[in-house]
């Protein structure tokens, strides 16, 4: 027999592909890639966890689409049908909701770990910026998805959230109309949010995610400040060592997710009614809580301005500075850690935690 016939199916497939596409370049890259080992290596995993939870969102989101119907007179009923009649419908929805929350949490952990280790410094400024855009999109995903079941809680959260957009000077009214599809939160708003949530945001998110991951692959993992980029003391091969560890963690996350979804299933609540009072205990998703609580504490007027205008402007400016932090931090580029930035980061983390707790305890 000629050696050609000895080749296994796998070998023949590989050869067939190799004749057409430069597969060896990809495998060569994966083989050579090394992950630096430090005591902070644990933080390298949170980006991957966020990615995994995003993939779960895509899958469960598509499954939900098979039953969900949009429109003020159908949305709530279709979700109730999904949860009470469809086999495992409650589970799919519960996983989608829980995974969304865990994804935002993982993204926050990822972001703060990058901030405190200064991993955003040169040459990774745009990895930080694309990451921040992804986080903002994740929040937009959460905000738009929250309304889709058309329940009371979501209705008022959307009323408040979009009203905040209306506070923006000059373009406020235009953007409010754009978001709501009219002056009030109605079925038109629901249609738009549905479009944002299942088409517009996923499209943009996927593109930015691809760029973000490409940057990470091209530049490799960052090293702690002061450590030599070229020759770190210890490394671990990306494949298979790091990938297997990644997969193990994904498996753990999947189990945690399943436990949460089964034992704490997501509630549906009351159907939205545009002509009832906002119920006591109204609140947004936890990741908006610190801003929501801040708006509660602000007085009606600060100097000549309305309180909420000051609050919204404050958060807007703080967010912008946060996105630009790789360009503002001059010290880390030279291998030194700015104490000031560490303190600012700590104050922000503490502020978010304290305001979130107050928000839940007071309501």
């Amino acid at each position, binding site marked *: 027999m000629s050696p050609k016939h000895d080749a296994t199916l796998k070998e023949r497939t590989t050869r067939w592909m190799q004749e057409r596409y430069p597969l060896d370049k990809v495998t060569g890259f994966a083989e050579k890639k090394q992950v630096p080992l430090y005591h902070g290596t644990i933080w390298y995993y949170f980006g991957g966890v966020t990615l995994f939870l995003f993939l779960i969102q895509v899958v469960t989101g598509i499954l939900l689409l098979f039953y969900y119907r949009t429109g003020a007179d159908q949305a709530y009923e279709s979700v109730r049908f999904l949860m009470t009649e469809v086999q495992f419908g409650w589970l799919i929805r519960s996983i989608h909701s829980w995974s969304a929350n865990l994804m935002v949490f993982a993204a926050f952990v990822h972001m703060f770990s990058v901030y405190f280790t200064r991993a955003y410094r040169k040459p990774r400024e745009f990895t930080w910026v694309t990451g921040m855009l992804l986080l903002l999109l994740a929040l937009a995903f959460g905000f738009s998805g929250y309304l889709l079941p058309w329940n009371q809680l979501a209705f*008022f959260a959307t*009323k*408040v959230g979009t*009203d*905040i957009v209306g506070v923006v000077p000059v373009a406020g009214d*235009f953007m409010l*109309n*754009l978001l709501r*599809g*009219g002056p*009030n939160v109605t079925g*038109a708003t629901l249609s738009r949010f549905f479009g944002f949530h299942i088409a517009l945001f996923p499209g943009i998110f996927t593109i930015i995610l691809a760029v973000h991951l490409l940057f990470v692959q091209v530049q490799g993992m960052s090293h702690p400040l002061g450590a030599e980029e070229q020759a770190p003391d210890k490394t671990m091969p990306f494949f298979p060592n790091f990938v297997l560890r990644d997969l193990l963690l994904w498996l753990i996350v999947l189990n945690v997710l399943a436990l949460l979804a089964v034992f704490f299933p997501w509630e549906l609540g009351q159907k939205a009614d*545009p*002509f*009832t*009072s*906002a*119920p*006591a*205990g*109204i609140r947004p998703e936890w990741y908006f809580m610190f801003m*929501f609580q801040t*708006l*509660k504490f*602000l*007085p*009606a*007027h600060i100097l000549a301005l*309305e*309180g*909420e205008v000051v609050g919204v402007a404050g958060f807007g400016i703080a967010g912008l500075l946060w996105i630009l932090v790789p360009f503002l931090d001059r010290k880390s580029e030279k291998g030194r850690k700015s104490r000031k930035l560490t303190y600012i980061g700590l104050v922000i983390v503490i502020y978010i935690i304290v305001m979130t707790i107050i928000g839940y305890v007071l309501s």
Partner: protein
Amino acid sequence: MRENTDQSSRRKALNWLLGGGVVAWLGAILYPVVRYLQPPEMPEAVVSSVKAGTVDEVPVDSGKIFKFGNQPGILIHTPDDQWRAFNAVCTHLGCIVQYRDDLDQIWCACHNGHYDLQGRNISGPPPRPLEEYDVNLQGNDIYVSKT
């Protein structure tokens, strides 16, 4: 030399034409899209008066949300047996307010805003008072109209 300047000015003109063309082309695409995204104004019958409910429905020291055109209104039967009506949209961030019989106040659950029974913002974040409506009783029916 002359030929050169001729060429460069011709190139400049062409660049301007090309750039202008691209801008005009983008504008021609974006304009209809932006206009499309702005919902059309719905012609609405102007409501100046509405039946908000009946006297039996709203006992002393309670309130009721009613529909005033496309806006929610709140009708209040005060502890001293007076009738008041306001626009129920909180002046802070647009939630719908409610009557609190334990405080004898109008209250917004969203950001803990308080109004007195004249609709004045007395504590919390609301920046302005609620718009007040006129209340008229005709037998058992309660009519509310814009002042």
